[in-house]
């Protein structure tokens, strides 16, 4: 555009000065030049307007550009934020999963600890039962067997006053043969089918009083526990507990297991020791008789 204007001015000048020597312009040519200058001015104004428009358009474009840049930046930031939010969600999920797993492991740990305590108790119980049955069958001496039964009842069950009764099958009378905490002479005999003790022996079922506190005054017919000693279904006697140690206020699972074990094993131990003692006595009688004959 600048070149066009310069060209136009040169043309006007040539027309105003046709020869190098130059001559004065006539009025017509002057008007023409004036007109041309007017048109040039108008053209210049037009150019200026155009320029203004272009500057405005450029400014608009710059604004748009700025806006686009910001939007792009925002989009990038938003995308980053979204990415971080996704990561945060993933981490939160992982965290809650880990917490869940942790509480599961903690629970399992607690279960294992409880199981360990249970196994330890079970182990202790089995040891008590093993030792009791081992001791019960360690002797064939009747008095020794009675002593072992009493030892088990004192040391492993924790009874302070109790008695062992044996049944006379002919008379159906239960007679005390050993006792702890009570004089043997003070213990009465009981008939099968009468009182708690007699009924327990008749039915063959163990009796447990609901209240484990010792009865005052002591009633020999009203015990805390009555355990019939049986070989299969044949009752040979009974263990009767009247009082527990002061520090023992209830029966444990171990106590019931020991009573159950005693019901069977004490019976066989007593029965076999009696048979052995009897056979020994008979053997000695026979030997004495043979010696008498052979002399």
């Amino acid at each position: 555009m600048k070149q066009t204007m310069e060209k136009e001015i040169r043309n006007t000048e040539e027309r105003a000065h046709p020869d190098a020597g130059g001559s004065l312009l006539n009025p017509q040519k002057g008007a023409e030049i004036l007109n041309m200058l007017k048109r040039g001015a108008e053209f210049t104004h037009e150019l200026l307007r155009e320029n203004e428009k272009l500057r405005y358009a450029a400014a608009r474009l710059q604004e748009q550009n700025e806006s686009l840049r910001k939007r792009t930046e925002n989009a990038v930031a938003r995308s980053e934020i979204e990415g971080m939010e996704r990561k945060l969600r993933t981490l939160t999920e992982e965290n809650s999963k880990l917490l869940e797993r942790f509480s599961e492991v903690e629970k399992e740990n607690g279960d294992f600890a409880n199981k360990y305590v249970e196994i330890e108790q079970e182990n202790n119980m089995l040891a008590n039962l093993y030792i009791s049955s081992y001791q019960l069958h360690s002797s064939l001496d009747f008095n020794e067997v009675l002593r072992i039964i009493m030892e088990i009842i004192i040391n492993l069950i924790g009874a302070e006053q109790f008695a062992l009764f044996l049944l006379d099958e002919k008379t159906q009378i239960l007679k005390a043969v050993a006792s702890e905490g009570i004089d043997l002479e003070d213990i009465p005999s009981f008939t099968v089918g009468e009182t708690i003790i007699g009924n327990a022996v008749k039915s063959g079922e163990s009796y447990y009083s609901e209240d484990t506190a010792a009865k005052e005054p002591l009633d020999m017919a009203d015990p805390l526990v009555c355990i019939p000693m049986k070989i299969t279904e044949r009752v040979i006697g009974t263990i009767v507990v009247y009082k527990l140690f002061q520090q023992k206020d209830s029966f444990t699972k171990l106590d019931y297991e020991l009573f159950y074990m005693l019901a069977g094993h004490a019976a066989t131990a007593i029965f076999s020791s009696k048979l052995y003692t009897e056979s020994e006595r008979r053997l000695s009688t026979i030997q004495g008789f043979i010696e008498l004959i052979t002399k």
Partner: protein
Amino acid sequence: MSRVLIVEDSPTMVQLLVFIIKKLRDVEIDTANDGANGLKKLSEGRYDLVLTDINMPLIDGLKFVSLLRNDRSNGNRDVPVIIITTEGEESIMEEGMKLGANSYITKPVNSQRVIETVRKFINA
């Protein structure tokens, strides 16, 4: 290795106490069936702990503790002693502690209680 002496006349209790205490690491267990035998063993070898029953024939647990603590010639005179009693009465335990016992366990024995009490006196 810690050496533990069990002074107890009941074979059932001895067997049970041995079963419980042998679960501990580095423990050697010796037994004596009455107080006199217990004192004899204590005058012969080194022990780190003694468990004694109260109710024993001839020399009972209380007498045993008293004799041990007053025997200046015994190398185990100051050995820790745990008394085992059927009595729940405070007075019996107090008497035992006054005579020189260090702790007590009541019957029927609880394995956990035995382990805890023994561990107070030996590293096992």
